[in-house]
């Protein structure tokens, strides 16, 4: 007799029906001598199958169901029964189902979920209710913070539904609405399908995901990103089960789909209001910190087991590692825990490669950000206490197929990391590297893998770089302050508020914690603040907010600094900046100039218009007019053009658009930069900017002019003996500005720049300080919380912290070197000619006839371009031609390059092997010279190197 049958048998024999008090799980377990959990499992299953009934109240009691007592006494506990009348209808459903006695053996899938009896209890009940509600269940919206397990929860719902035969078909179709949020058309076509001719490129009818999910389940992630048109169609489909494909008029298609939506959005937010109104079941998942200590530990165990299953080894870790891991979860919840566990396991795996049975995670070897988890956890005594009680000194996780979570969430790596580590380690060992450098190499790799994966995904998207220098807690507090300032006080602040304020708070808190003396207030500061009574009032408010948050008094002096900070980040939203339109000939000349400058200065008042050479002037005029209209904020537009012929456009444009337009020709990147800087200054207007820009001739000279007025000569750079400096401005000139100095110094060293000093200063008496500095230094750029009013580039804090430091420094170098021109000449297509290549060949080769050979090698490149998808840049093409010429010359002198046997053997696996080999054969046909395999190896390496670079560049762009 199965356990299930024994339970039914016992209940029937003892006549435990609703006329009795019923039987508790405890009693049943004891009577049948089975585990309590097993008893509970069977009872729950029998309730669902409608064979027994379950009471409300504690402890839960059960009765066998007799036909005479149908429905009446039956009350099912569900959190939503009042809204949706679930209880009554469900009992009918259960009656229908009693006929189905044979059930699947894998009992209750939800029981396997950590917390299903505790912090997720309600959520699980809701989910079941949603799925079982007749006839087709209820659509569900899952709400929860990033990484709290929404996808996992939805997938569990799906597996539950499958187990219960609620859905007919296997199939859990996932669609992330954020993926196409910027292109509603494309999004809709993915979701609903389209008919031939619905849009350009729709060459045939195509079904959408809704059709694909027919009979199964469709999971719409980040549903708040669904554009309004999409929402309408989804809601219509929810209500009626029918929809139309793109390009069809009538809604004629039918599909039976269970919809689960998910979002990280706050349910109160306006974005979600429609969804909350129209989706009956809302399941709110808790954040990691709201889980019980026990659950956190269970989650950790599960996730570790998952890794143990992958490496087929035990994982051993001490109490402190467990605490560090749990404490390392700051904002990303279970997802973040998972990625951190993957990271430390990968590291442990690498360090214990020689140990066949076990990997050891040691605290000393954890990455610093995870080590910090320990102190993070320690700061919450209560939580730590609860956890310590549950912890043993050492924990050993064994592989266990049953316990490993199924890999369904988006935090799962798409490949087996451990295989990669293993292979790579073997490879490096083969090359004779010692263990420590092998480990070094691979750790870098692992970090890269995980990082790129998670960046592509959800974690780490927000406040990325800021997070590294400021605690998340402070960032959150700052966001709160911003909200209060903007919403309650109507005080608008600029984008850089979060950066400026959180850095300020952070350095202040550090100072208090380290017991350093407080900052003195100078009389300058006090008199400056007197001019800003409004900011002073708000500063008091902000001060109180911080004091309240940290539960310690904040000294009066801080209020002054806070007021100054507010003055500097205040944005006057009424006033529009003068707009800038860059128009130039060439495929991307104008847009790339505009892009560089917008990024560098993080301004949004620049538009661009690219004009192919053959473009008709009247077309260009219309195009430019459109851009002028787009960028005008009521203060006129400055048009920067590359050729004099365009400068006659001003009047026509003003006529056409009604916007005041001034034109300046001979545009350079430096000029766009200067224009952007000037137009975003406080009181700029079109006339002034135009007048000043007409006199602008590049940074080297204008920066120079400030020093020794009037004496500018052509070799001024040699005469200006002052050292170069970058000024970093913050409220006090101490905390934040020093951090900025640290970042910039690193960038400078990394770029081998040894002649620029970074000088941190305070915003108080900023202009005087700058004047003083200019006596000894030539200021080449500024950064910080405010733009000082001097004619050099400025980079915002936000940009700097998000990795803009590199490009900032590069630009400064460029502007200060002899030539002020920032286009990469070589990549203009017309600049690569056979002549250029021929010149280089002449310079470097002895025996070849450049004139003759250049043609042959040119064709070689063309052959590869035409017959493969490889994108050959001009630079690569010249380098390749030079290399090939070298290879041919080496063949002629019979001194070919050498390569290792193993290297030569590897070439057949190279993705470029076939195409390059074919090209070599053509070369042989022409010149009767066959390049040996060692040379082929080096040619392939050129291609591989280029490909890797392109790939990393692409992934970098993606990250941005």
């Amino acid at each position, binding site marked *: 007799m199965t356990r299930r049958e024994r339970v039914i048998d016992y209940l029937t024999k003892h006549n435990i029906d609703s006329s009795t008090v019923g039987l508790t799980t405890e009693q049943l377990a004891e009577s049948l001598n089975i585990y309590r959990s097993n008893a509970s499992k069977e009872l729950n299953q029998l309730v669902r199958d409608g064979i027994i009934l379950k009471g409300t109240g504690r402890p839960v009691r059960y009765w066998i169901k007799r036909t005479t007592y149908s429905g009446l006494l039956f009350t099912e506990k569900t959190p939503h029964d009042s809204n949706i009348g679930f209880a009554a209808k469900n009992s009918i459903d259960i009656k229908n189902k009693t006929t189905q006695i044979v059930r699947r053996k894998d009992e209750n899938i939800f029981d396997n979920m950590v917390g299903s009896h505790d912090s997720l209890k309600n959520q699980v009940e809701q989910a079941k209710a949603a799925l079982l509600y007749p006839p087709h269940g209820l659509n569900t919206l899952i709400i929860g913070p990033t990484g709290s397990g929404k996808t996992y929860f939805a997938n569990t719902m799906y597996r539950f539904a499958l187990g219960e035969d609620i859905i007919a078909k296997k199939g859990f179709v996932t669609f992330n609405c954020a993926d196409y949020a910027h292109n509603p058309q494309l999004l809709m076509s993915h979701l609903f399908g389209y008919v031939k001719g619905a849009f350009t490129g729709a060459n045939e009818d195509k079904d959408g995901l809704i059709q694909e999910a027919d009979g199964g389940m469709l999971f719409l992630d980040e549903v708040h990103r669904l554009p309004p048109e999409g929402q309408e169609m989804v809601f219509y489909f929810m209500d009626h089960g029918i929809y139309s494909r793109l390009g069809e008029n009538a809604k004629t298609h039918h599909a039976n789909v269970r919809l689960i939506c998910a979002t990280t959005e706050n349910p109160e937010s306006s974005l979600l209001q429609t969804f909350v109104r129209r989706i009956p079941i809302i399941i709110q998942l808790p954040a990691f910190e709201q889980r019980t200590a026990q659950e956190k530990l269970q989650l950790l165990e599960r996730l570790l087991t998952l890794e143990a299953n992958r490496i087929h080894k035990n994982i051993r870790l001490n109490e402190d590692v467990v605490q560090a891991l749990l404490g390392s979860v700051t904002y990303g919840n279970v997802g973040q825990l998972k990625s951190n566990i993957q990271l430390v396991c990968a590291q442990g795996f690498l360090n214990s490669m020689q140990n066949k049975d076990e990997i050891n995670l040691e605290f000393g070897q954890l990455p610093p950000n995870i080590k910090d988890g320990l102190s993070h956890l320690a700061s919450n005594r209560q939580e730590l206490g609860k956890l310590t009680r549950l912890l043993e000194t050492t924990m050993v996780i064994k592989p266990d197929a049953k316990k490993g979570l199924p890999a369904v969430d988006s935090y799962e790596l798409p490949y087996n990391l451990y295989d990669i580590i293993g292979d790579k380690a073997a490879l490096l060992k083969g090359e004779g590297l010692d263990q420590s450098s092998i480990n070094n190499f691979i750790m870098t790799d692992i970090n890269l893998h995980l990082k790129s994966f998670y960046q592509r995904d959800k974690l780490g998207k927000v406040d990325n770089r800021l997070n590294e220098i400021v605690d998340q807690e402070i960032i959150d507090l700052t966001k709160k302050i911003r909200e209060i300032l903007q919403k309650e006080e109507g005080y608008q602040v600029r984008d850089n508020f979060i950066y400026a304020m959180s850095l300020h708070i952070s350095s202040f808190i550090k100072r208090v914690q380290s017991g350093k003396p407080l900052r003195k207030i100078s009389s300058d500061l006090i008199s400056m603040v007197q001019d800003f009574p409004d900011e002073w009032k708000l500063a008091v408010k902000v001060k109180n907010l911080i004091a309240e948050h940290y539960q310690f008094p904040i000294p009066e002096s801080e209020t002054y600094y806070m007021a100054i900070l507010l003055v500097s980040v205040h944005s006057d939203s009424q006033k529009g900046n003068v707009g800038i339109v860059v128009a130039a000939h060439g495929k991307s000349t104008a847009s790339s100039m505009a892009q560089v400058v917008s990024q560098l200065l993080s301004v949004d008042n620049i538009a661009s218009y690219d004009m192919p050479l053959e473009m008709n002037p009247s077309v260009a005029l219309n195009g430019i007019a459109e851009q002028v209209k787009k960028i005008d904020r009521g203060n006129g537009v400055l048009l920067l053009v590359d050729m004099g012929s365009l400068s006659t456009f001003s009047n026509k444009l003003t006529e056409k658009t009604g916007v005041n337009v001034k034109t300046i020709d001979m545009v350079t990147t430096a000029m766009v930069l200067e224009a952007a800087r000037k137009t975003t200054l406080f009181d700029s207007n079109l006339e002034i900017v135009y007048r000043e820009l007409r006199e602008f001739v590049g940074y080297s000279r204008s920066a120079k002019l400030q020093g020794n007025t009037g004496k500018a000569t052509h070799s001024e750079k040699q005469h200006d003996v002052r050292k170069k400096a970058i000024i970093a401005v913050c409220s006090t000139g101490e905390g934040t500005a020093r951090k900025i100095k640290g970042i910039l110094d690193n960038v400078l060293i990394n770029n081998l720049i040894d002649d620029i000093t970074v000088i941190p200063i305070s915003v108080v008496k900023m202009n005087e300080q700058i004047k003083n500095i200019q006596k000894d230094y030539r200021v080449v750029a500024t950064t910080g919380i405010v733009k000082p009013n001097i004619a050099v580039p400025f980079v915002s804090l936000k940009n700097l912290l998000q990795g803009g430091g590199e490009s900032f420094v590069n630009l400064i170098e460029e502007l200060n070197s002899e030539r002020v021109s920032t286009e990469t000449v*070589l990549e203009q297509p017309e600049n690569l000619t056979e002549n250029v290549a021929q010149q280089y060949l002449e310079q470097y080769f002895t025996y070849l006839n450049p004139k003759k050979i250049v043609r042959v090698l040119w064709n070689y490149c063309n052959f590869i371009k035409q017959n493969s998808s490889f994108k050959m840049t001009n630079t690569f093409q010249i*380098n390749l031609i030079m290399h090939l010429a*070298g290879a041919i010359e080496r063949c002629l002198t019979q001194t070919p390059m050498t390569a290792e046997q193993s290297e030569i053997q590897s070439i057949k696996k190279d993705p470029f092997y076939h195409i390059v080999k074919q090209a070599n054969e053509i070369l042989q046909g022409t010149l009767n010279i066959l390049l040996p395999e060692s040379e082929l190896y080096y040619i392939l390496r050129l291609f591989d*190197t280029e490909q890797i670079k392109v790939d990393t560049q692409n992934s970098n762009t993606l990250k941005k």
Partner: protein
Amino acid sequence: MAMNVRLLRIDSRLLHGQVATNWAKITKVERILVASDGVARDRIRKTLIVQAAPPGIKVNIVTIAKMIRIYHDLRFSTFNVMILVENPIDAKKLIAGGIEVRSVNIGAISFDNSRKMITDTIAVNQEDAAAFKWMHERQIKLDVRKVSGDSSKDLWKYLDSKEF
């Protein structure tokens, strides 16, 4: 402590395919410094050199004077580098400027009408030979190899036999 120079190499073409793939790997440097007054001013050649750099390795193009300056600058003392120069005269300038090396690797020096071919890839004129002699007198090994796998040959012997 000054910068760690793992390889000083003379090659007319400075940084190109074989250097990129082979020497960077063997010397395990994190950075390649191209020291040339000419290239530091030539945008196109700069672009070509940066393109040829192996992924993950930084390339900087500096003048000879700056190379000597940063070599002695403590801020850069943690760098492990390979230095590339175009000709023996620049190499001599660097060594005279205090950059310490025990050997100089010579890859290729392009032929022109002032020069004679002394190996299959190396052409020298009187000035070059004088610079090599200067290095030889300071016990600096003149190591001729295209890639690290080649057997090393001493340039001094070729110079001798060609009567420089």
